[in-house]
């Protein structure tokens, strides 16, 4: 199973950090830079602007060439048209998307593997029996079990700074402060790259979650949903968020973490999300 560090690494990958491969096309120049830096040669002063320029060109060209291919959200139908999507998106956000999708697939299969290993658990045996009697392939049954939508975590995050203002979660997760910062950075990166389209980034797929983002004036609400994210759930989530935001402004508790978290907990308990 994927451990917490891997999850953070995955998010980091999304941010293109420390990615030597990304700079493949300019790697020769980078290694020259490395050397000159090491030798403390004055040359480095001359070389770095060239590399910078190339990197700049690289990022500048991404949105221009394939901007229209990005629609309302970054939601990717992996199963349907994996290769097509990879092809279409690849130049836009570069390797970040490609890596992300391949990680996504890797993790999906890891998760299925794990479920298969549970074969001797009572759940597993029950599933096996059901599979024998119903004729449905066991793996398909596992996939449908994975697909049940469930709101796992809700984060209220300050816009700009990415500071976590409050959260609600059904189980312990990776570091919330880092998730908040990184989500904010991804959001900023994507929104910046597609400035002309004036679209807020509305969702990010990450791990086995879809993270739904809902912007308000000073903050945004990020909800991690596991399973299949349906239109219906999206509507429910948006209503839920509106209710929360009303309460936040009524009680002015945006910067009162305890009160905010109490509100999230309370609202979450009483709100009924449909789970198909």
């Amino acid at each position: 199973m994927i451990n917490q560090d891997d999850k953070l690494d995955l998010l980091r990958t999304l941010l293109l950090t420390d990615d030597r491969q990304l700079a493949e096309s300019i790697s020769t120049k980078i290694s020259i830079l490395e050397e000159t830096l090491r030798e403390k040669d004055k040359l480095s002063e001359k070389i770095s602007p060239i590399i910078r320029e190339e990197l700049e060109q690289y990022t500048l060209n991404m949105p221009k060439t394939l901007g229209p291919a990005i629609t309302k959200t970054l939601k990717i139908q992996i199963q349907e048209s994996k290769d097509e999507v990879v092809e279409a998106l690849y130049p836009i956000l570069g390797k970040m998307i490609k890596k992300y999708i391949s990680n996504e697939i890797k993790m999906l299969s890891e998760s299925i593997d794990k479920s298969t290993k549970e074969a001797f658990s009572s759940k597993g045996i029950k599933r096996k029996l059901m599979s024998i009697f119903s004729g449905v392939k066991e793996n398909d049954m596992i996939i449908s079990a994975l697909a049940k939508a469930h709101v796992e975590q809700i984060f209220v995050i300050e816009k700009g700074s990415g500071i976590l203002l409050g959260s609600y979660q059904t189980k312990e997760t990776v570091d919330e402060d880092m998730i908040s910062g990184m989500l904010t950075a991804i959001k900023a990166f994507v929104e910046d790259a597609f400035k002309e389209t004036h679209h807020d980034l509305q969702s990010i797929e990450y791990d086995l979650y879809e993270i739904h983002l809902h912007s308000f004036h000073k903050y945004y609400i990020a909800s991690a949903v596991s399973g299949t994210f349906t239109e219906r759930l999206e509507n429910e989530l948006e209503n839920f968020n509106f209710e929360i935001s009303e309460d936040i402004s009524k009680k002015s508790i945006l910067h009162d973490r305890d009160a905010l978290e109490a509100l999230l907990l309370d609202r979450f308990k009483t709100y009924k999300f449909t789970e198909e």
Partner: protein
Amino acid sequence: MTSKKIVIVGSFGVGKTSLIRRFVDETFSEDYKVTIGVHILKKTVEIQENIVNLIIWDTEGTDDIEEIRKAYLLGTHGFIYVTDITRPKTYENLAAHKTYLNEQFGNVPIIAVGNKTDLLAKGSIAQMKEDMDFLDLLISAKEGNNVQRLFERMAKMLIA
């Protein structure tokens, strides 16, 4: 506990990433990997009775500060401007860049540091300090000198 966003800025190769790694993981590596995009790490520091949660954003190196994606700098509570004392080019625009940061992102603290003091000849640091009085602190990410102090100083300014 209060959380604060700190952004590390400065030219290519001055040691921004090394500084954070020294502070957060207590490690140093001679490898130079270009940071692309932004990298986020965190560490808490204790100042008197206050625990301050520093969320540290590492940026790509740019010689021109205006090239950093503005959205990454929004809402920053404090900047650390890193220069390399062996490369004058990395501090020649310090004053202008500080003005730019304060004008664009609010009147928040900016601490300017000169990194790589370990490369100086023994005994020349005092002179260096005098010559480079526009720097607030001289540090070495490699050896760790003044690194903890730097972040504590920042935290102190942020809760004052």
